[in-house]
């Protein structure tokens, strides 16, 4: 990767203003003859400029949570507050990278057009758009494929396009839903580093959802561990790893192993039905 990985100064994380505030979030899917309580009670705060990972087993309600936060789904109870405003519809200043990233790209547009369209909708002038699009394309390493159509690219490259589109949009909060679940291990490692690089470079608040414990620990400043459905937060783990991370070095440190072990234990407990609130599922 050709990106400058110098860590940004720590002070840029604004520890006072919450970028995203989720309070008592509950989501029950109704219809089809039965109700599914996907998320029971989630409360957490993400400060401006943080990179927070949410890890939980499949079916824990991670996608449901992100869809509620992004305003795509009505909540049953509780509220989501982004930059001080309650979310009732997709708010400005938020970008989402979907789990089905390949399907989130417009197949009739080229890579460049895919990235540019949201900027057009934001009302940016042509020259400004062109510049931001190019910066994003270069940042994710797609310079040579800018005029290709998404279906001409591999899965990993499609994911880069989705990320570039989100980054070019300059959101204050970037939500990512298991973005690397479907790419090969090498690509995945590259993309993980890419996310941290972009986070440094563009100073965006990131909420990264994954079912992969290693990935959560490697990427995050904090890891929120989710229980099984109906979902609550089991633990909010502070990741004390140094800011500059590398796939090889970081993953082989004792600290990484300890954190990983800790999170893993929590998840195992969750699987056995342990709930912090003492409720029964």
């Amino acid at each position: 990767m050709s990106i400058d990985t110098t860590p940004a100064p720590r002070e840029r994380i604004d520890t006072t203003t919450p970028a995203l505030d989720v309070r008592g979030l509950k989501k029950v899917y109704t219809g089809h003859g039965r109700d599914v309580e996907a998320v029971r009670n989630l409360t957490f705060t993400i400060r401006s400029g943080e990179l927070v990972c949410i890890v939980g087993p499949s079916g824990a309600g991670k996608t449901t949570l992100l869809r509620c936060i992004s305003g795509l789904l009505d909540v049953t109870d509780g509220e989501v507050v982004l930059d001080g405003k309650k979310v009732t519809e997709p708010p400005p200043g938020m970008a989402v990278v979907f789990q089905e990233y390949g399907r989130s790209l417009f197949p009739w547009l080229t890579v460049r057009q895919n990235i540019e369209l949201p900027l057009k909708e934001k009302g940016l002038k042509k020259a400004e758009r062109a510049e931001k699009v190019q910066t994003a394309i270069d940042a994710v390493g797609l310079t040579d494929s800018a005029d290709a159509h998404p279906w001409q690219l591999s899965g990993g490259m499609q994911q880069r396009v989705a990320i570039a589109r989100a980054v070019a949009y300059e959101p204050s909060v970037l939500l990512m839903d298991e973005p690397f679940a479907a790419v090969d291990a090498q690509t995945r490692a590259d993309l993980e580093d890419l996310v941290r690089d972009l986070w440094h470079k563009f100073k965006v608040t990131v909420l990264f959802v994954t079912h992969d414990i290693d990935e959560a620990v490697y990427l995050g400043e904090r890891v929120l561990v989710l229980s099984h459905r109906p979902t609550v937060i089991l633990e909010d783990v502070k990741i004390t790893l140094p800011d500059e991370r590398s796939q090889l070095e970081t993953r082989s440190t004792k600290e990484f192993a300890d954190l990983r072990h800790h999170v893993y234990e929590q998840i195992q407990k969750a699987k056995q039905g342990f709930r912090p609130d003492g409720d029964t599922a």
Partner: protein
Amino acid sequence: MNLSSLARQLLLAIALPIVLLVLWWFISANNTSPFWPSLETIFKAFPTTWTADRIMADIMPSLARLALGYGLALIIGVALGTLIGLNRTVRALLEPALEFLRAIPPPVLVPIIALFVGYSGWTGKIAAIALGCLWPILLNTVEGVRGLDEVLVDTSRTYRFRKPTYFYQVVLRGSSPQVATGARQALSLGVIMMVISELFAADNGLGAAIVQAQRSFAIPQMWTGIILLGVIGFLLSVIFRVVEHRALAWYRGLRQSERGS
């Protein structure tokens, strides 16, 4: 696809018609039946039958009505189809009725429309063409809009696309392959309706010219009209294919890549 492969496809497409014409030419060469004149006789009748005046008086009005009727059906069909496709309640309400209306053979529309506006004049003919073309476009559009990928819809929502952008960039372009399928079916229906709508009043138009020739036993002239009709239908479908080929290049690529992986 590049130009040379397009030319090759064209060549393949016209190979069989040429063979058939040649066969027709030789089989009919010494024909004495007045109803089956030799192809040579028919060809010789062309220049005298289709003079510039006749082209302006018959072919042009036919084509103009076809264009108007077809264009109307496209606009109404896509607009209505989008509305129905996007709204589940409207769809549940209208779909059975639409399927029923679709099952009615379009030619039967001609006498019904004539009840209101008569057989002669443009209105009835254009209405007949438009109604005949409407159903395949409408129903295919509904199908296409309904089949829009919900991830694309969510993407447009999170990036807060404005309504016009959403309709054009997502709904219309996303359903365009199905719209094209409907439009292709509608085109051949349109040619059929163009002719049928002219048969009853037989005042002007290509269909009228054929009936007039038949009624006055100008058999070779009648045949020239029929051949001309075939050629027009063929040219229209070639034009359609070229346009579709360009507009939906992305769709072919997408399908190919899906098959490949």
